[in-house]
């Protein structure tokens, strides 16, 4: 394990930023202050942030509709991100993308995707670019359990395995494709086992354990970076909130949700860091407070930002 104390601090901070971001967005939605829809990732912070922290800062990711924790994990300007959620001119996509399309191509975030499985193909050939240009960078492709049933999953894993591309296919299995439990959408319990069909390594990890996530992704990233071809990782986790803002959670029990809240990935990391004597509770409290303060500052930035001018409607259709 090569994780440093400063990495732990950053990981803990980003996980708290992700949690605070989602709590804020949820609050805004409940009060009708944001239009459209959003897919919150509360409960999945370790899975997303831990994976991104194990990458190099210039590695690439493709993100998903439930991508807020992923892009915060990659390291993002929270102001621009919150501004995008509020549809402002200063947002990452100048207010034209919104929650489902946060992208920062220059920083290696090739975009969240509104289409389940839409990132598979993009990740594959972003990896071709890295291989041909010998950049030494790798691509981590986030997707969910539902996307593992899309045709693009098969095409992408097959192609990437044949061409030995530097991609980590990172499945965040949160047990439900919208309302449908995996028991009703696939005939297996472990998605990582599908790796065998493509002749590539597959691993399952506890997606609520940030340290385990970090260690496995770091190990796999090294393997992938050395030119050994793609790897499938299944990160087993759970989303606490509904699929989207209109979800009444009728397909699962309160008890089930509560049982997963007891496996809170942020609390688990806190316990680990204090238990190992790396940080005091007081020190972590300070980091957490900073994360929440940063989100408040992002909200203020977004609120004070202008809306995109109507004249921008026709801009940027073509390069």
């Amino acid at each position: 394990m090569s994780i440093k104390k400063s990495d732990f601090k950053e990981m803990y901070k980003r996980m708290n930023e992700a949690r605070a971001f989602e709590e804020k967005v949820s609050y805004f939605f409940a009060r009708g202050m944001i239009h459209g829809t959003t897919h919150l990732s509360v409960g999945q912070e370790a899975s997303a942030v831990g994976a991104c922290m194990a990458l190099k800062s210039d590695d690439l990711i493709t993100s998903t509709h439930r991508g807020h924790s992923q892009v915060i994990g990659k390291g993002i300007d929270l102001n621009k991100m919150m501004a995008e959620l509020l549809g402002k001119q200063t947002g990452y996509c100048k207010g034209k993308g919104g929650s489902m399309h946060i992208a920062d191509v220059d920083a290696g975030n090739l975009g969240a995707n509104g289409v389940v499985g839409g990132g598979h193909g993009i990740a594959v050939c972003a990896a071709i670019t890295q291989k041909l240009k010998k950049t030494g960078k790798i691509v981590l492709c986030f997707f969910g359990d539902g996307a593992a049933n899309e045709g693009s999953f098969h095409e992408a894993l097959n192609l990437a395995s044949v061409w030995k591309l530097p991609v980590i296919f990172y499945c965040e299995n949160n047990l439900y494709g919208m309302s449908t439990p995996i028991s009703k959408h696939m005939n297996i319990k472990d998605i990582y086992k599908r790796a065998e069909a493509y002749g590539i390594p597959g691993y399952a990890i506890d997606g609520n354990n940030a340290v385990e996530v970090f260690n496995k992704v770091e190990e796999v990233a090294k393997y992938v970076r050395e030119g050994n071809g793609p790897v499938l990782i299944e990160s087993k986790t759970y989303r606490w909130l509904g699929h989207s803002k209109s979800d009444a959670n009728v397909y699962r029990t309160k008890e089930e949700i509560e049982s997963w809240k007891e496996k809170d990935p942020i609390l688990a990391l806190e316990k680990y860091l204090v238990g190992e004597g790396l940080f005091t509770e007081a020190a972590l409290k300070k980091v957490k407070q900073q994360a929440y303060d940063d989100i408040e500052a992002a909200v203020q930035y977004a609120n004070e930002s202008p809306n995109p001018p109507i004249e921008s409607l026709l801009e940027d259709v073509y390069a």
Partner: protein
Amino acid sequence: MKEMTYAEAIRAAMSEEMRRDPDVIFMGEDIGLYGGAFGVSVGMFEEFGPDRVRDTPISEAVIAGAAAGAAVTGMRPIAELMFMDFSTIAMDSLVNQAAKMRYMFGGKAKVPMVLRCPAGSGTGAAAQHSQSLEAWFCHVPGLKVVTPSTPADAKGLLKAAIRDDNPVVFVEQKLLYRQKGMVPEEDDFILEIGKADIKREGSDVTVVVYGRMLQRALEAAEIVAKEGIDVEVVDPMTLVPLDKETIINSVKKTGRAIVVNEAVKTGGYAGEIAAVIAESDAFDYLDAPVLRLAGKDVPIPYNPDLEKAVVPSVNEIADAIRTVMNR
């Protein structure tokens, strides 16, 4: 200038651009040693090697998605779909991903990719290997749609498409692959995307036509010329962005317009061009209704006589010209 076939012109365009720019790569099904289903890429694998001429699995969704991913990260991929019909399998990658990235990301991405699509009927390949689906892509802002009708146009437009910073759907005509024509050999021979070409000047009727139907329109023009009708043939060459000005100016000159395309009539691009004419100031110059001649609204049938009957013939085009001339 050198005489070459439409297929050779396409190969020349790709090869010249790949020699010029190491970021240009080419991928598709059986395009390597095999040389492509229609032999378009024969010899390219030998010249450029397996890194840059990449045989893919039969995976259209990921071919198109992959092209988008490579494009957005700094390559200039050319992807070949074996038949345009298979673009249906690649639709998400094209329509929801490649076409949208730039706008949806606030102008911060560019997607310089070309999707080459062999299209059209006349090969006896029946309903799933014969379609002309260009109108589908014209309906998606963010994509450019190019439809070359001659070897020279194919070369000049493909080079432009490869250099363009946007996703370009490049509609090739399978039946034209063996057609010969004179083609400029210079490396810098580029035709502007979005610029129409007047293929025959005339004063009585404007026929707007693209793709395989161009040759038929030119033949029809010669037939009616003997009857004293002077036809102007305008080839838009690019459907999106459409060179409206050239079309409208031609109709203002002639006062009559017929739009011809091979694709099925309902929802086809001929309707769009007819509407462009109708809502322009050319309307005041019209001496007859704007006519559309297009494919019948049926899947392409197998039987050769039926297959021929699907798309406009030279005689049907000549008859339409006589109709708008009240003859």
